[in-house]
């Protein structure tokens, strides 16, 4: 095994490089579950609640896209339904980013060249990355299992579920090991591994959607596409119900086969190259690219289309559930109380719309941050320097980010309104009414999102190095003190008022009120102007030189 010489040292280097990143993935995932599981337990306190909640998602094919209960009616199965797909995607992201970081990325940055010239075997780097990926997934599974068991869920089921998540993680690690050999840049290698992860999600979801619900046994029989996906294998283990351990073997075998394939492919290519050459792009710029607004759009359109697809899917599910929401609330006392707190109304459908639009409205703050924080990244990395040394003024440069963020988020608000409104119209009848109702409830979030963009722009002008940190903190505080979590935590009024989201009229439960929206619009504009003026007056803050 000469090709593995030096693997110990490689693992130590990789562990040291990831000493912050890896624990963060695991702690954040565990922390998310530690907050979410008690909340879910709060929603389904009685057997009737549980059955009603599980049925709500089981009868609706669109809702099955995001997951299925294992079968049966325990709280563990409800957690499976709510969390398994999300946790799988987290494990998948962590794994492929890790493998690409320690393989192809090393070659991109020429770090591997330095290492490769020392006493290190040809396969040591890849093997170290794969071992680290397995290790990370085992840690992640341990963290998940501990949180589940600590919350009183069945021990066997908790272990089965967490190993199911790890199974998805290592499967994707195997995929990334192969894409890292096939593609010649870490961007492409990660992009393809991410696409495979998305395909796994879609396959498992499609299998569940095409499956059949057996009302007597409260059991979703998934169709064949589920069996083509590691996420599907995890779900078909049916943790908390049947605990079919042999399905874990499929993930392990998948991982081993792909790893072997990656080792073989690594011997068939040159160092620093992929099996596939990078696809050439256009030699000339399209007319739409050569202005600052077009450039930002181009840099950022992939993120936008990802969100747009997500918004359409979320809208379809949310619209299609609206038909069953009244029945569900009639059966489940606790859910009704929860929605009354969040929605502030006893009209369940209205409360449901308030809750869902609130989640969407706040979630889109992430998109605002993704666009506006790019300003800081381009400044620190140096692209902004090259642009601002041309006849492009700082005001136009900054304005192009503001316009992109606001235009993008407005489009996303309308996309989800359209998809949810049309589907709700199909289910409930009277499309025009529901379309109007949902659109109004969603689009009113725009001024609060503008305030968030304004905060980032202003911070960027005054404290550039702290932009990302302050931006994300302000967003987190706004969400925690916002309408849903803030109401559930029963925070005092003064604290709730800190969040711009609190001041959004909760339509349709509340009536439209222009005053707070106009004030927020004014605040946002003020922050934009402040940012534009003071960015013009400061030094560029570059990382180098």
């Amino acid at each position: 095994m000469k090709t593995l010489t030096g693997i110990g040292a490689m693992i130590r280097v990789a562990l040291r490089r990831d000493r912050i990143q890896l624990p963060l993935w695991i702690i954040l995932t565990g922390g998310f579950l530690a907050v979410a599981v008690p909340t879910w337990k709060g929603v389904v306190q009685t057997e009737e609640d549980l059955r009603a909640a599980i049925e709500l998602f089981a009868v609706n094919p669109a809702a099955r896209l995001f997951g299925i209960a294992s079968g049966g009616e325990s709280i563990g199965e409800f957690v499976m339904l709510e969390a398994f797909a999300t946790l799988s995607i987290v494990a998948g992201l962590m794994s492929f980013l890790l493998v690409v970081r320690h393989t192809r990325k090393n070659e991109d940055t020429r770090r591997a060249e330095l290492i490769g010239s020392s006493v290190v075997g040809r396969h040591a780097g890849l093997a170290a990355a794969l071992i680290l990926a397995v290790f990370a997934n085992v840690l992640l599974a341990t963290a998940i299992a501990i949180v589940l068991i600590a919350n009183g869920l069945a021990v066997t089921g908790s272990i089965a579920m967490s190993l199911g998540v790890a199974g998805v993680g290592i499967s994707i690690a195997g995929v990334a090991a192969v894409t890292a050999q096939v593609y010649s840049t870490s961007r492409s290698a990660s992009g393809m591994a991410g696409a495979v992860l998305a395909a796994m999600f879609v396959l498992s979801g499609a299998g569940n959607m095409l499956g059949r619900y057996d009302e007597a046994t409260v059991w979703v029989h998934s169709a064949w596409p589920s069996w083509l996906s590691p996420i599907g294998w995890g779900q078909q283990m049916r943790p908390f119900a049947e605990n079919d351990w042999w399905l874990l073997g499929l993930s392990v075998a998948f991982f081993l086969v792909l790893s072997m394939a990656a080792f073989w492919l690594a011997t068939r290519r040159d160092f620093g190259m992929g099996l596939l050459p990078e696809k050439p792009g256009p030699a000339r710029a399209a007319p739409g690219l050569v202005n600052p607004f077009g450039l930002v759009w181009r840099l950022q359109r992939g993120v936008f289309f990802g969100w747009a697809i997500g918004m359409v899917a979320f809208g379809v599910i949310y619209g299609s559930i609206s038909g069953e929401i009244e029945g569900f609330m009639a059966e489940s006392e606790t859910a009704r109380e929860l929605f009354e707190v969040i929605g502030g109304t006893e009209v369940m459908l209205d409360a449901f719309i308030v809750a869902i639009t609130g989640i969407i409205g706040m979630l889109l703050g992430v998109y605002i941050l993704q666009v506006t924080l790019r300003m800081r990244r381009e400044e620190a990395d140096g692209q902004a320097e090259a642009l601002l040394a041309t006849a492009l003024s700082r005001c136009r440069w900054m304005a192009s980010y503001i316009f992109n963020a606001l235009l993008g988020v407005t489009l996303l608000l309308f996309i989800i309104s359209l998809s949810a409104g049309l589907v709700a119209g199909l289910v409930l009848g009277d499309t025009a009414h529901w379309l109007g109702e949902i659109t109004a409830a969603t689009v009113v979030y725009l001024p609060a999102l503008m305030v968030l963009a304004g905060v980032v722009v202003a911070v960027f002008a005054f404290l550039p190095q702290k932009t990302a940190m302050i931006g994300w903190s302000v967003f987190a505080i706004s969400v925690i003190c916002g309408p849903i979590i803030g109401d559930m935590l029963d925070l005092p009024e003064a604290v709730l008022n800190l969040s711009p989201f609190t001041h959004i009229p909760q339509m349709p439960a509340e009536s439209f009120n222009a005053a707070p929206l106009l004030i927020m619009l004014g605040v946002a504009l003020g922050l934009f102007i402040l940012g534009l003026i003071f960015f013009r007056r400061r030094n560029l803050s570059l990382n180098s030189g």
Partner: protein
Amino acid sequence: MGTPGNVIKISGLVKRFGKTLALDEFNMSVQGGEVHGFLGPNGAGKSTTVRILLGLLRRDGGEVKLLGGDPWRDAVSLHRRLAYVPDDVKLWPNLTGGEVIDLLGRLRGGLNPGRRAELIERFKLDPTKKCGTYSRGNRQKVALVAAFASDVELYLMDEPTTGLDPLMVLTFREYVKQARDNGSTVLLSSHIFADVEALCDRLTIIRSGKCVQAGTLAELRHLTRTKVHVESEKPITGLDRLQGVHALEQNENEAEFHVDVDAIDDVLRHLVNFKIKALYSAPPSLEEIFMGHYGEEMPSGEQTGASEVSK
């Protein structure tokens, strides 16, 4: 297109970053139509000066005039008349080189399509490759093509040849000369003496934020000295009495010194008497020039950069 008088006039320029004094009463003047070398070890303040000229950084004191305007206040209108090649260019990994050339050219106010094609050909750049896959030298070429394809009055270039292979450095020099022949002015910041020597009419040397020397190459003749290391069978004597020998260090059969170009012949004739076993000669590194000429140690932070010169 030549601008008579000073294209760049800097006097008493001060720039601080927190407590560090990056530029300390720095002076420089660049005349219209010349190629002006801006020489100094890394960290001496070259990039800071160029960024102040571009209005990217704000000066803390002193006067700066660029193309007759104020680089901070008139940034946008001045940028139409100049092209900038940054040190270690960072580009957008998912745009192609060709797209970036068009983008930068257009934002600067347009580029000459014929020249663009010619430059891409001459620099052997594949414009269809994504910037993320370019080596540093190729990224440098993208910035150079974008700059030379614009007809501007002034080129500001910060370490433009780093990462280019020797053949491409020759191509680069050709285009700098062409720009000067067309009446443009070039400010060429570098720590590579050979570039400056080959191209520049006049130069300014910066060290620790101060201008330590400025003038034509002939005036700064000591910069073109040759460093000689010699070993012989017989003990070497009499070197210290020869004209044009500087910074001499020797023991019995070994000597190291700098020699003026016009004294090389005399010195070699003298050395032959001692039965030479080995002889090395090279241009002195910036670091050695500074040490030899100013008789004090360089701050340690600057040595790493300066040592690249001796390659």
